């Protein structure tokens, strides 16, 4: 088991290093000169430009720039923003909780809704409950998150005018309220996917030979479904969810914009527009990191669930 975890952590590190190189190169391939971003179109003397180049480390070679960026990340220093001319750590302080909260909360909402309804649909296969759940999930799967967000905003504006979902936050209650509505809007795609996979996977398990054995032993339906089948069915669900979290991180960029939330997503779009390279690199890196942490956790969870994976 510890060997397995060790191997997964090593994979994690290697992937992070490779993506950091790719991200760095991709951002630097852009044609805009970072200096333009720094001066922001103002008239500047050649001398000042030279000084700015040194200040932001742009006088060094690409390789040196890469290593000073990565070295900074390891020390927890995210670098300087060209546009805001302040430390990116400061820039992230308020925004990071919004994005991570959005992703986590919508994952939780999605699983809490999708798993029981997927299981229900499987148990009631081809009956009314299954049909209704299937129709709803097909509909949800077809709705992009930004569209759901717009509908949601309209709904809130019409029926819950007192619910204020934009702006900053000063305590946990406010924070939670800010991310709640966008999290629900963001959760829909995952609800649909996770529900359908849970249903398919549960149906497979309900037809498995060991299910018949359990029935012949005299288990109740609840013991069968939750004590025997669910654990067997959950691995494909976890796989889909962990991949879908990547989609959710991307979706959060759109949802934040529609809800005018100041999270990393809105900052990312701003920074791309203004060629604020280091910020773009940092946010992309952070998103990859969140995705990789979740994938690695899911891999470890597989092994905890299935002894055969543990033994390999």
């Amino acid at each position, binding site marked *: 088991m510890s060997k397995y975890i060790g191997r997964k952590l090593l994979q994690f590190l290697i992937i992070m290093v490779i993506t950091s190189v790719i991200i760095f190169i991709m951002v630097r391939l852009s044609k805009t000169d970072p200096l333009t971003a720094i001066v922001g179109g103002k008239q500047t003397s050649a001398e000042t430009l030279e000084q700015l180049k040194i200040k932001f480390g742009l006088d060094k070679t690409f390789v040196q720039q890469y290593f000073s960026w990565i070295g900074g990340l390891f020390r927890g220093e995210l670098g300087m923003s060209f546009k805001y001319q302040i430390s990116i750590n400061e820039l992230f302080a308020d925004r990071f909780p919004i994005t991570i909260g959005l992703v986590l909360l919508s994952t939780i909402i999605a699983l809490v809704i999708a798993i029981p309804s997927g299981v229900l649909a499987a148990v009631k296969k081809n009956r009314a409950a299954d049909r209704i759940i299937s129709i709803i999930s097909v509909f949800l799967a077809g709705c992009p998150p930004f569209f759901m967000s717009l509908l949601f905003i309209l709904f809130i504006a019409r029926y819950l005018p007192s619910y204020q979902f934009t702006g900053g936050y000063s305590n946990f209650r406010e924070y939670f309220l800010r991310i709640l509505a966008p999290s629900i809007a963001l959760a829909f795609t995952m609800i649909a996917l996770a529900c359908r996979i849970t249903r398919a996977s549960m149906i497979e398990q309900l037809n498995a030979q*060991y299910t018949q054995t359990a029935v*012949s*032993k005299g*288990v109740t339906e609840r013991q069968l479904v939750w004590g025997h089948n669910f654990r067997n069915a959950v691995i494909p669900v976890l796989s889909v969810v962990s991949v879908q979290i990547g989609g959710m991180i991307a979706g959060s960029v759109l949802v934040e914009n529609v809800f005018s939330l100041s999270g990393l997503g809105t900052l990312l779009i701003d920074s791309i527009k203004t060629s604020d390279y280091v910020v773009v690199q940092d946010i992309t890196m952070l998103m990859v990191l969140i995705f990789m942490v979740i994938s690695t956790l899911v891999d470890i969870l597989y092994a905890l669930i299935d*002894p055969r994976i543990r*033994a390999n």
Partner: protein
Amino acid sequence: MSISGLVYAVRDITLDIRKGEILGIVGESGCGKSMTAKSILRLHDEKKMEYGGSILLDGEKDILKMSKKELREMRGRDISMIFQDPITTLNPLKTIGKQILEMYQLHTDISGEEAQAKVLELLDLVGIVPAQDRFRQYPFELSGGQLQRVCIAMALACRPKLLIADEPTTALDVTMQAQVLDLLKRLQRKYNSSVLLITHNFGVVAEICDRIAVMYAGQIVESGDVREIFYHPCHPYTKDLIASIPKTGQHGTQLTTIPGMPPRLNQDIVGCPYAPRCTKVCDRCRTEAPPLKNAGETHEYLCFLEPDNSREVSA
């Protein structure tokens, strides 16, 4: 492909299993053996299946009339079952110990420690040793033969009145088959349970059964004591089945087979279902259903042929 309409997989079966006896049901694939076995525990999906008649436990309680709760309590405690492929029969994610333990949790009030002690005792009894270590192993860590022993231990945990064994040795290699049958017989004697053994292998029946029922196309075509059936088969199908048992020391000779296939069960059967394959077929067989005849006190068969006539043929 789907078969629409009503399919009579099993027709007009009368079977009785006495206390402490091993009854073997023999027949080719698709003749309704497993259907019959699973019906006893009502394991079929009742949205797709209809049962008719009655299945009496202890000669009084009708399993087909039991409530869901009664059924659940009966399963595993009064009647339990072992299946063909031991590798897929157990839950892959639970230790074998816990899977046997579940029987006690479902059907008894004994404490966890007591139950665990009983499981270890059972594992010891079926030869899964050292029981202490095996208790914590998962199905994938055991071989097919070992898993079938685990299944036997699990099925017998609550000392059921009847154990249904659906082709318990078919998926095992030959040396394992003998050992598993031996174990089954030993435990059946020890606990004085009745066993319903389903198989397509006459050799298996000869080894451990007291009585035989031969099934064809959803009907029992012949039944009786094992010696009686073996030495004096009356139904042509039984004779053909016995003739097709490979004999040792017969190198170079071709194996005897029964040409043709059993009828499809969604087709209407007129007359005797075996008529198209029967070597002793007469005109009557094709139009009229054969009668049930006695060829001895416990020996019954479903054919127009007279017992004496057919006895002479088998000699």
